[in-house]
């Protein structure tokens, strides 16, 4: 095993309080040998970008079920850029309407995982994007 570990931040931006999905993903990534920094509920984009900076994260997973993704995600990407961390891969999970998926991908999001995605697919996607 190489000494470098994939470090992923799992965060729930916005105001909805449903964190089961985020926890399931966090656990799956842990079991895949990654170091998962779990930041918990009600995170602002500023808090998430700050965590990514301090933790030198390779990837961020955002769980959003509130419908506010088109407001929150661009802000996170913007902050990463202004912190010179545009190399951090951003993934979205939760409830995202189909028509918003291409818009998020166009913004620079690396993957959108809706309900029913297998955790193995998420692990594989993060691993391959980080290794790129």
């Amino acid at each position, binding site marked *: 095993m190489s*000494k470098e*570990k994939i470090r992923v931040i799992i965060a729930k931006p916005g105001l909805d309080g449903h964190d089961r999905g985020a926890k399931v993903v*966090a656990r799956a990534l842990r079991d895949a040998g990654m170091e*998962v920094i779990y930041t918990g509920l009600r995170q602002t984009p500023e*808090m998430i970008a700050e*965590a990514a900076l301090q933790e030198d994260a390779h990837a961020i997973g955002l769980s959003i079920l509130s419908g506010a993704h088109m407001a929150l995600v661009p802000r996170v990407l913007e902050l990463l850029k202004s912190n010179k*961390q545009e190399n951090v891969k951003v993934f979205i999970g939760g409830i995202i309407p189909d028509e918003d998926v291409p818009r998020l991908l166009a913004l620079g999001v690396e993957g959108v995982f809706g309900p029913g995605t297998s955790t193995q697919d998420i692990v594989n996607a993060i691993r391959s994007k980080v290794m790129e």
Partner: protein
Amino acid sequence: MIDVQAVLDGNRLAISRLISQIENDTPEGQRALSELFSYTGKAHLIGVTGAPGTGKSTLVNQIAYHYRHPTNSSTPKTVAIVAVDPTSPFTGGALLGDRIRMTGLSGDLGVFIRSMATRGSLGGLANTTAGVVQAFDAAGYHVILIETVGAGQAEVDIARLAHTTLVVEAPGLGDDIQAIKAGILEIADILVVNKADRPGIESTERALRNMLQLADPQVRSEFKNSENGESLWETPIQCTIAIEGNGVTEVIDLISKHRVYLEKTGDLQRRERIRLETELTHRLQKLLITQWREQLSDGLFEKVLDRLLTREISPQEAVTQLMKGGSGE
């Protein structure tokens, strides 16, 4: 490439990237640490340890907040937090959750929180935690709070690293026999009994107080007490309700008192010496064993191992043979 000057200037991205290099034990990381070493030794290193669920992260959050927003007229201190959580022995993965309790510190540029996984180390810290602390020290943070993994009884590495060690207890964790066992309680410079609003707080506090009174003040542990016979530090007990911030100013006062004690008695120097001795020994061991393995003739180690496996020779004999450079056949 690591920009050492940027680290010294306190550039957060540079610090963060350097820490990753230290964690991954890369040659660049080691080189940078070596360059930074002369700038270290200024920060006050505060260790926070205790059983899982006693409220270490919440207390660390509160202590950091008080250093940033002092109640008296003193100037705010910059704070780095190194929060260690365990690595899974099966998958090598880790879930680092200490930040959850520290959201009150976000947005403050005078605070830097870094989560670390133990990556196989068993003493309550990661093998590279000392290096990470050095990086923060060189970057100019005044106070460095080091939170260990939820520690049981023997994870006492923190006492070798920190200047002041806080051991956090909570009501209902065990009887008075637990309190007189060797190990984690012995390393406390300050004992914090958190969750003081919980039932059983009186008996927990009493058990700990009795434990401290039973201790012979003349017993001079490796970590504590001055050699020149000056007044010994008597470990104080402070009750807190960290989630509400109760008792935290008192903890800060005790930390300052302990710092004064360390400086007055020369204990600070002594502890630094022990710490550097440990680091020097570890580095020497690592280097010597690598070099020795390199000069060993090919296949000899495996040959000795084979003979060990068939019980032809004992491990003691194997070592003697290897040091002589032969397999003993």
